[in-house]
C-alpha cells in the first residue's frame, strides 16, 4: 500500500497477518563450521555446537527501524547439535 494518504487508493499488496489465520515463517541458521583436511581427507567440523537464538516480532509503523518500532513478541532459545556433531 502507499505510504501516505495522498497516494493511497486501496490495499495494493497485503502483507499483514490475516485474522483467524496462522502464518508460518521458517528460518534456517547455519552453525559455524569449517572443512578440515587431515590425512588427505576432508572432514567438516563444527566450531560451535550451540546457538543462542532470539526470535523477535516487530511492528514497524514507518517501514524501518527508526525508534518507532514496537515489539509484539520476543523469545530466546538455545539450540544445540551436541548429540550429533560429526558429519556422517
Amino acid at each position: 500500500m502507499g505510504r501516505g494518504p495522498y497516494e493511497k487508493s486501496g490495499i495494493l499488496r497485503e502483507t499483514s497477518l490475516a485474522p483467524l489465520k496462522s502464518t508460518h515463517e521458517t528460518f534456517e541458521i547455519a552453525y559455524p563450521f569449517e572443512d578440515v583436511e587431515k590425512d588427505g581427507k576432508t572432514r567438516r567440523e563444527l566450531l560451535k555446537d550451540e546457538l543462542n537464538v532470539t526470535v523477535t516480532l516487530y511492528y514497524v509503523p514507518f517501514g524501518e527501524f527508526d525508534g518507532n518500532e514496537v515489539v509484539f513478541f520476543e523469545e530466546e532459545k538455545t539450540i544445540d547439535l551436541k548429540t550429533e556433531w560429526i558429519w556422517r
Partner: protein
Amino acid sequence: MKRALIFGLIGCAGCIMLALNASGAGGPKPEPPPKATTIAELAERYDSSRCADCHEEIYDEWEESLHARSVLGSPRTAPTIITTIEKGLKLFPYSGVKSDDDITVEHLMLCAKCHLPQLDEATDDVAREIVATIRGWQQAYRDGDDDKAEELEETIESLNIGCMVCHNKIALIHKYADGYPQPDTVYGGQEGDHDDDEYSLMAEAPAIGESIFCGQCHGQGPNFELEHPSQCATAYGSYLFAYVAHGGSESCQECHMYKSELGHNMQSYRDDSMIEMALDVKVESQSLFWRKNKEEGVVPIGVIDVSMYNKSGHAIPDG
C-alpha cells in the same frame, strides 16, 4: 410441517418489522450550527472537559487515548497532514491549492473526515488556521523554542474526537430510521434527563455498541464520497470481510474497551494488553545436519519455525 413453515415465515416477518421499527431518539434534521470562525471557537464547542465533573473516570480514560489528540496523533498525524498538503494537494493539478491560502475545509476533510469530523462546522479560515498552527509548531521545534512548541501543541490537541463527537455528532448512523442527532441530547445506552444545561437529555444510540459505529472512521478503504478519495483506515473492511466472514463474532468494543479493561482509553499496538490479545506466537526449533545440495554438501543448521496466529478481529497491522 406446513404449520411450522408458516410460523417461521411469520417469525421472519416479525423480525423484519422489528428491524424497520427499531429507532433511537433522533429527530428531524436540525439547522446546522453557526460556523465556528476560529480554532478556539470550534474547540470550545466540542470541549470534553465539561463532562469530567460527572464522568471523571471515563474522561481520564479518554484523555489517555489517541482520540484525545486525533489531529496531533502520536504525534504522527499533524505532520502527515502537512505532507498531504505538500506532496498531494499542492501537486494535484485540479485541487485548487497552490499555497496554504488556498486551503479550505473541503480540502482538509481528506484527513478531517475521521481526525476532526466537526471541521465541517467551521469556516475555511479555521482550516487555514489549523495548517498555520501545525506549521508553527513544527517550526518552533526546529528552532528549539520549547515554550512556543508546547503552546501550539496544546492548541492542536484542543481539536480532537471528544465526547460529543461520538455521543452526539456521529452517534446516529441510520438517520432515516433513527433520526438526526438533536443538539440538546447526549447519545449512549440510556434514556432520560441529563444534568447539563446544554445537553439536557439522554437517548439511545442503537449502534453505539456495535462494530459499525467504529467503522464510521476505522473504515473500509478509500472514502469515495470525497472529491479525492484517500485510504487510511481499513480495519472495518478487514473486520467484515476477513474476520466475520470466517466465523468471528466479537465486536470492536468487546476487545478494545471491555476485555482489555481500557474503557474509553481505546488503544492498539502501543498497549501491552492489546498486543497480548492480538497474537499467539509459538516458536519451535530443531537442529540437524542437512544435506543441502551437491555444491554445499551437508550443512549443520538450526531450523526455527515461528507460527503466528492472529486472534484479533482484523488484519495486523491495520487501522
